[in-house]
C-alpha cells in the first residue's frame, strides 16, 4: 500500500514577501514585488525591471555563519537555504549543527543554474591566469547541487540528497519526486523546493530572446500581466520556495500541523513534437500531463476548484487556458477559478514552480483565491474560453477542497500536481 503524503512545513523567499506570514499577506492583498533595477538599465537591457527578494545582511547572519558568508556570492543558494531552513523549522524541527543524522529525511532542491555571479568572479580571475587565487568555494557555489549540499549539511539530512533541473518546471517536479519517494516508503520526509539566482547574468539570455516585457520600465508594479490583453512578455523574478513533505503516518505520530495533502501528479515531456519546440509546448502533451495528474490522484476533472497556472504573460497564456479547458472538459462558467502568482512576483524561472506550489497550498489552507493583478483587461481569446468571473482580479474568499498547480518549461517539459485540503 502506498503512503499518503502531506505538507507539514513551508518556507518562502519571494520578491513580494519573505517568510510565510509576509508572503500570505502579499498574496491576499495583491502586492507586487517587481521593481526597477538601475543595473539592468546601465547594461542596456530592454527589460529593466525584475523581482528580487529583500534579504538584509541581518537576515543572512541569522541563517549563515560568518565563515559561510566569506566570499559567498550565490543568491540562489542564499534564497534556497533560507526557505529550506524556514520550512524545516515550520515543520517542528531545529537547525542544530550537532543534531543526529536523520536517515529518514531527504532533500530534492532544484535550480536552473547556480552561483552565476560567483562564476563570473571566477572567470575573470581565471582569464587573468590567476586560477590559484579562486579560493575554496567556487565549486560549491557554482555546482548545480550547491544548494542541496549547503542545506543538507545545515540540517543533517541522511536520505537521498540531490538537485533536479527542468527549467521552469523544476520546483513542481522536485515536489513530485519527493512525493513519490515518500509514497513508495523510501523516506519519511522529503524537503523539496527550488531556487533561482537574480540578476543580469541569469536574465540576460531571456532579454536577448525578446521574451521579457520592455514596455513597463516606468511602472514596474503593473508590468507583469498574465492573461491580460496587454501582456507583452514576462518579467524576470528570483527567490526560492521549500516544502516539507511527510508521510501522513509520520505527521500524525509527531502531532504536527498539516497544511494540505499531496494527492498526486504527473511529469512528462512533449518531446518537441506536434508543435512543441525547445521553447514552445506540445499542447497534446500538456493536456495529457493534466489528465494523468488527475487520474493519478484518483480524482475527476470536475473536482478541481482552483487552478494556479503557469501563465507567464506571454502570447502562450491563451494556449495554456485552452489546454486546461480541453484537459478538464470544462469551460465558460463551469471552468475552475484560475490565477497566476506571476502577476505579483514575475517569472521566478527555476524557482517559479516551488514559489507557486507554496502560493497554491497557502490559498488552499487559508481558503481564498489570490487576485490576478494587472488583469482588468482579460485577453479576448481567454474570455472566449472561460467566464470573466473565473479569473478574479480581487481576492476571493472561497471554501474549496482541491487546487491544481502546473508548471511548464523550456525543453517542452511539463508537471502538474494536485493538492487537497486536509481536515483531520
Amino acid at each position, binding site marked *: 500500500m502506498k503512503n499518503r503524503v502531506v505538507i507539514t512545513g513551508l518556507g518562502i523567499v519571494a520578491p513580494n514577501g519573505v517568510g510565510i506570514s509576509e508572503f500570505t499577506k502579499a498574496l491576499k492583498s495583491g502586492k507586487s514585488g517587481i521593481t526597477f533595477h538601475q543595473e539592468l538599465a546601465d547594461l542596456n537591457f530592454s527589460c529593466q525591471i525584475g523581482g528580487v527578494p529583500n534579504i538584509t545582511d541581518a537576515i543572512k547572519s541569522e541563517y549563515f555563519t*560568518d*565563515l559561510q558568508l*566569506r*566570499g559567498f556570492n550565490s543568491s540562489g543558494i542564499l534564497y534556497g537555504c533560507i526557505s529550506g531552513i524556514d520550512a524545516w523549522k515550520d515543520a517542528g524541527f531545529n537547525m542544530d549543527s550537532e543534531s543526529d543524522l536523520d536517515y529518514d529525511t531527504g532533500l530534492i532542491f532544484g535550480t536552473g543554474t547556480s552561483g552565476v555571479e560567483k562564476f563570473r568572479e571566477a572567470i575573470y580571475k581565471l582569464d587573468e591566469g590567476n586560477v590559484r*587565487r579562486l*579560493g*575554496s568555494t567556487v565549486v560549491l557555489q557554482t555546482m548545480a547541487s550547491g544548494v542541496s549540499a549547503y542545506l543538507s549539511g545545515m540540517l543533517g539530512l541522511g536520505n537521498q540528497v540531490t538537485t533536479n533541473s527542468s527549467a521552469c518546471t523544476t520546483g513542481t517536479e522536485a515536489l513530485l519526486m519527493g512525493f513519490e519517494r515518500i509514497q513508495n516508503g523510501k523516506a519519511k520526509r522529503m524537503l523539496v523546493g527550488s531556487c533561482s539566482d537574480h540578476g543580469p547574468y541569469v536574465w540576460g539570455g531571456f532579454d536577448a530572446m525578446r521574451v521579457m516585457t520592455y514596455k513597463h520600465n516606468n511602472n514596474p508594479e503593473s508590468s507583469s500581466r498574465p492573461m491580460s490583453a496587454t501582456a507583452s512578455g514576462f518579467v524576470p523574478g528570483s527567490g526560492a520556495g521549500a516544502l516539507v513533505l511527510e508521510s501522513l503516518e509520520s505527521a500524525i505520530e509527531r502531532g504536527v500541523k498539516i497544511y494540505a495533502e499531496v494527492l498526486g501528479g504527473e511529469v512528462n515531456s512533449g518531446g518537441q513534437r506536434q508543435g512543441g519546440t525547445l521553447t514552445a509546448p506540445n499542447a497534446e502533451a500538456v493536456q495529457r500531463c493534466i489528465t494523468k495528474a488527475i487520474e493519478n490522484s484518483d480524482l475527476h476533472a470536475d473536482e478541481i476548484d482552483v487552478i494556479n497556472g503557469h501563465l507567464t504573460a506571454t502570447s502562450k497564456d491563451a494556449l495554456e487556458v485552452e489546454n486546461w479547458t480541453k484537459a478538464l472538459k470544462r469551460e465558460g462558467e463551469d471552468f475552475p477559478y484560475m490565477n497566476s502568482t506571476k502577476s505579483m512576483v514575475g517569472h521566478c524561472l527555476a524557482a517559479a514552480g516551488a514559489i507557486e506550489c507554496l502560493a497554491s497550498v497557502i490559498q488552499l489552507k487559508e481558503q481564498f483565491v489570490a487576485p490576478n493583478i494587472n488583469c482588468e483587461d482579460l485577453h479576448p481569446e481567454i474570455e472566449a474560453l472561460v467566464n470573466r468571473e473565473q479569473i478574479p482580479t480581487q481576492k476571493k474568499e472561497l471554501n474549496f477542497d482541491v487546487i491544481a498547480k502546473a508548471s511548464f518549461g523550456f525543453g517542452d517539459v511539463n508537471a502538474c500536481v494536485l493538492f487537497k485540503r486536509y481536515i483531520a
Partner: protein
Amino acid sequence: MTNDDLIAKLKTIVAPYIQDEEAFKNLSEDTDFVSDLKINSANLVDIILDIEDEFDIRLENEDMEKMLDVKSAMEIVNTKLSA
C-alpha cells in the same frame, strides 16, 4: 617583525576559519591548523590567500603543502619576507 607580532597577525588571519575557540585562545607556535583549531582542510587554501594578501608575498604549492601549523607558517612567511 618579532615572532610575537607575526603570531598576532597569523591569529587574526585564521580567526574566521577556526572551529575550536579554546585552542584558538591558547594559540602558540605548536598549534596545528586542522587537529587543534579544527579548521576545515578546504579552508587552508583560503588562509594561504589571506596570508599572501597580508604580507604581499606569493606562496607556491610546495609552501602550501608544508603549511599545516603555526610554526611552519611562520617559517615560510619569514623566508619569503627575507628573500
